[in-house]
């Protein structure tokens, strides 16, 4: 079948197409299908050993391997950027083991494997977003027992999630949880969105692309099907809010993307730039590109930090 000719195609490397053998891929796909059928529910799967340590995206890489076809175009991002260690090594891995086309442009990709971010460019129906998840269980913080947390999911006992948010407000006056902010999917399961900033939480809601989450160490897959309601938990009098910056991106001048703070010298000079490197570059290449983008409004790009 197609599996065998994929095998022959990459027999030179001694690996099957996309590293995993076909039976394993079928097992992972079955888990993915179940995850899509029950939005937000953590489906256990027989996670394999991958040639990288746990915590480096072993869950996400298995999902990507199971999903990849020869016509797919893969994009891998780590903290929003295409040129960081994790992204580079995973992209190279699939270049070698699957020989698929890779890209840095969000719009061109069909499968995007991500760590810690959702791209700024809105996703489409023909795209799949694969997340790498270190800790899939949102209840773990208050309920260390796995048997008990499974029961809590089954009975929809999610009061403790609000206990966590209550603690935030009681201690700091506002909800300070800024990443891995718990969400409720399709009005049922409470889910950890993986350590993406809460800035990205609204992008998961009603998203046209399929979003799947893989946790390699815990061997769990969960998913948000396209156009599914995703609500961030909050209180009536302390509603959910995303991060905001006074600064704009020092390179492209964007005011509505997630910004990273970069230290420029040892005298406290800093610059804020888009964490999504592809978004930032495409903005510089098009519309208000060039010098205006490179030199944004006065006082916006850098900031003196008081000693």
């Amino acid at each position, binding site marked *: 079948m197609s599996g065998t000719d994929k095998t022959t195609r990459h027999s030179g490397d001694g690996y099957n197409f996309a590293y995993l053998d076909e039976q394993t891929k079928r097992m992972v796909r079955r888990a993915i299908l179940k995850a899509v059928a029950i939005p937000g529910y953590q489906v256990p799967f027989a996670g394999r050993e991958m040639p990288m340590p746990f915590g480096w995206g072993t869950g996400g890489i298995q999902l990507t391997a199971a999903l990849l076809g020869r016509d797919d175009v893969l994009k891998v991002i780590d903290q929003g950027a295409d040129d960081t260690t994790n992204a580079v090594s995973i992209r190279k891995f699939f270049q070698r083991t699957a020989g698929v086309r890779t890209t840095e442009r969000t719009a061109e990709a069909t499968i995007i494997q991500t760590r810690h971010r959702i791209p700024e460019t809105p996703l489409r129906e023909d795209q799949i977003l694969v997340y790498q998840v270190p800790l899939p269980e949102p209840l773990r913080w208050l309920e260390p027992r796995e048997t008990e947390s499974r029961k809590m999911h*089954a009975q929809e006992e999610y009061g403790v999630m609000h206990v966590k948010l209550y603690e935030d407000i009681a201690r700091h006056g506002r909800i300070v949880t800024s990443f891995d902010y718990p969400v409720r999917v399709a009005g049922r399961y409470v889910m950890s969105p993986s350590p993406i900033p809460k800035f990205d939480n609204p992008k998961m809601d009603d998203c046209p692309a399929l979003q799947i989450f893989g946790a390699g160490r815990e061997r769990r897959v969960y998913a948000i099907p396209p156009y599914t309601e995703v609500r961030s938990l909050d209180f*009536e009098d302390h509603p959910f809010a995303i991060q905001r910056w006074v600064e704009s991106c020092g390179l492209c001048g964007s005011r509505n993307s997630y910004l990273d703070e970069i230290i420029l010298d040892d005298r406290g000079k800093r610059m804020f730039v888009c964490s999504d490197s592809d978004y930032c570059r495409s903005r510089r290449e098009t519309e208000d590109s060039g010098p205006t983008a490179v030199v944004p409004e006065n006082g916006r790009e850098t900031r003196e930090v008081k000693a």
Partner: protein
Amino acid sequence: MSQLINKEAPYPVVPEQSDPDAETERKTASSKPCSPGVDDNPLLIVEDVGKSFNGTPACRDISFMLWPGEVLAIVGESGSGKTTLLRCLSAGIRADNGRTSYCSPTFGEMDVFTSPEHVLRQLHRTEWGLVHQNPRDGLRLGVSAGANIGERLMSLGQRNYGAIRDEALTWMRKVEINGDRIDDLPLHFSGGMQQRLQIARNLVTKPRLMFMDEPTGGLDVSVQARLLDLLRSLCSELHLAVILVTHDLGVARLLADRLLVMQCGRVVESGLTDQVLDDPHHPYTQLLVASILEA
């Protein structure tokens, strides 16, 4: 132990005879707390409940009824099956035989032993409360006192931070914990404060039935006295039915309307607290009363 039982073999006639009396006493006893507008149906009917561990019976043939607003103490020596009985009734462990029916305003008349787990868990969050002997078992030590009290409210869908906090403050005041400590971890509370916090955490949803396992165990006498005082006023104020397990007859006398005396897994005597303590019929109860009144 077995000798003791053998010796008493002729005796069960005595409590057996006094049992019908106890029945009538119970009715008069229950009608008092029931009078303020609550129907006369018993809250909990326990029939022939038994539980054994690896063939060793821990409690057997336990039958009694509990009316709304009534405080029932189960007393007996260590190992007499008090806590096992309490855990069976609160559905913490599965009883081997017998049945317990609970009259719930939301679920109606229900059998506790055969009810599905989600119903029982909901009962434990709403209409029931469980006070552990060691407050650390019943509290979340890693979150503040306010969050501990608010947890039940949040699990019932309260989503207003201000309202939760106000409720937590109200309950802290009721159990005499200073309101400034609302954001402190219970880990840094004294034993008595932890116990009071545990009680507040259970009472916040206004339960109808509380299971208490030695609530005053491990507390010094003055703290114990204040806690008992508090419990007594809360019980009457909230019209709370309580099943209280204790080995301390003093606690039972102060709090309980009725008493079950257990020995070797059986109820050997039951009745109104004052009657049982002032005029014990069963030799074991006599022994118990005699040994306590010395102190």
